[in-house]
């Protein structure tokens, strides 16, 4: 009986889980695998490609010496953090207003913000480029800081709206009777209760800004102002020559901060996504 039950759990649970894990982690494994291989080993088809025969740090050294990778990292950090902050502040205020201040157009405003999210980036970057040019922000990190919120704010606003909805209205009304102003209520009651939601919105903004490709490619041209995704692709793919080792080293180094952010906040992130406020 017990063996049967264990067996069925293995088949129903662990086997699919393992298959899924392998599927998800394989690209990551391939990336790490490539980083520590020399070019000769990489292009030698006679060797087992799943195994590193003579590990080397050459690719990483190359990444840091032949490109300004650290500069790109700093640029990406700056853009991601600024865009996240701007988006969070705007979304928090927008979501709170739409959800809690009763004004006639609150419903349509919410829908309009959502519709903004549905416009593909590939279309939006043309008018945005025009605006950026007029603002003389071309080839400046501020171009990215100001354009990323166009796709971050809609999602965050909707995520936070769901969160605000789960906070009983009476709690705010009680605070109002207790003598708190709107701003105080927001700061002392709403914000602490929504912290998981704010954190998950923040993680979302950060990772999306960190990985963003299209706007960074369109609005930035000088090497010193590039972000990691653009820098790697434009500087390590020369013509049809792919410097796989250095590329993968860049990808590995760039994924570390995101992985760290996720691992710190994963519990809050899950709670935030499900919008659960437990009393």
């Amino acid at each position, binding site marked *: 009986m017990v063996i049967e039950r264990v067996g069925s759990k293995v088949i129903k649970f662990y086997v699919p889980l393992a298959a899924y894990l392998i599927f998800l982690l394989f690209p990551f494994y391939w990336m790490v695998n490539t980083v520590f291989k020399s070019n000769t080993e990489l292009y030698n088809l006679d060797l087992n490609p799943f195994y590193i025969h003579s590990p080397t740090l050459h690719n990483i050294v190359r990444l840091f010496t032949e490109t300004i990778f650290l500069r790109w990292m700093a640029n990406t950090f700056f853009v991601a953090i600024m865009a996240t902050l701007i988006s969070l502040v705007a979304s928090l205020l927008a979501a709170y207003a739409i959800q809690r201040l009763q004004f006639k157009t609150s419903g349509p405003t919410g829908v309009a913000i959502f519709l903004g999210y549905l416009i593909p980036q590939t279309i939006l970057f043309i008018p945005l480029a025009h605006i950026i040019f007029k603002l003389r922000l071309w080839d400046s990190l501020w171009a990215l800081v100001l354009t990323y919120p166009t796709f971050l704010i809609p999602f965050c606003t909707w995520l936070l709206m769901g969160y605000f909805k789960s906070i009983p209205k009476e709690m705010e*009304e*009680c*605070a109002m009777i207790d003598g*708190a102003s709107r701003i105080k209520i927001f700061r002392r009651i709403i914000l602490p*209760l929504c912290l998981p939601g704010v954190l998950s919105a923040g993680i979302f903004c950060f990772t999306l800004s960190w990985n963003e490709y299209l706007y960074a490619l369109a609005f930035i041209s000088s090497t010193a102002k590039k972000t990691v995704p653009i820098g790697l692709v434009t500087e390590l793919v020369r013509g049809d020559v792919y410097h796989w080792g250095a590329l993968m080293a860049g990808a590995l180094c760039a994924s570390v901060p995101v992985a760290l952010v996720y691992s710190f906040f994963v519990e809050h992130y899950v709670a935030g996504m499900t919008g659960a406020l437990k*009393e």
Partner: protein
Amino acid sequence: MAEVRLENVCKHFDDVVAVDDFNLSIRDKEFVVLVGPSGCGKTTTLRMIAGLESITSGDVYIGDRFINKLPAKDRNIAMVFQNYALYPHMTVFDNMAFSLEMRKRSKEEIKQRVQEAAEILGIQGLLFRRPKQLSGGQRQRVALGRAIVRKPEVFLFDEPLSNLDAKLRAQTRLELKKLHERLATTAVYVTHDQIEAMTMGDRIVVMLDGFIQQVGSPLELYDRPANKFVAGFIGSPAMNLFEAELNGAGDGVSLRAGDFTLDLPPEKAKYFQDYAEQKVIVGIRPEDFKQADEHSPGKTIPVTVEVVEPIGNETYVNVAAGDVTLTAAVGRRTVIKPHSSLNLVPIFDNMHLFDIRSQKSILKN
């Protein structure tokens, strides 16, 4: 002095009239209960007093202050909500201290007043717990503590006991009443539970569809309901209400319903001059029936017992008299069995008659 006055107060939500022409003067230190079925406008009225709902028309005063446009925080009221609305991320102490903090009281004063309130409610041991670590009854006390710590002029209660189980509710009811006596503060209490209303209120306001149906002391409402709704709403089990035809004139007036007739005493008959040969609604409370050994036409109602419901301190029987079903109280110990026959004698002095169209009490007119 915290008298609360509502004059011609109306509240409309778009096309829906939630409260219509509400007039009430609540005396200082009085405990007034607003009671009625859900959607009758009682909570809306309370929220208008609290300042959580705008007033469409009419005037509200607390003491001499006209408060229509005054923000909730400046009305010097405290409110206890149905779901308690405790701040889950704060300790009990911080929950209770919040309003004082907002009013920039000194740390010592806050501490002293929270301690004082906690002592009154017996929650000194819980001050450093979070709301989720408390039972329903304890949360309720904390919500009360948060209200009393500020020493407001008026307490507003929005169904504060409805989340408690029956036993705890009865116990908290008593404590609330004691607390009100101790604090001697004007209180407005909203509930849909008529027993809560009867036991707690100095005066009860019965509402239906946004209108006040009747205002009075608990026993006034019980003994002299102004209309059919109040008669049926107040009292448990509910008053027996059935249609009957008034026959005869002068002193010899009788009621005819189902397959029985009842001769009304001559002193009552004078009220019914205008209702001769018309239908009226008769109301008799379950306890206003006596039993007779024999059927005597015009005096007793012959009935068949359908269900016997002993509840310990009283036994109720559900009986049928033709197509009229009635509930009668038959005392604590009874030998009555289902399907047996009984003869019920109504106590005419306690009988109510209501106009079938206006549903208003005829005897009162």
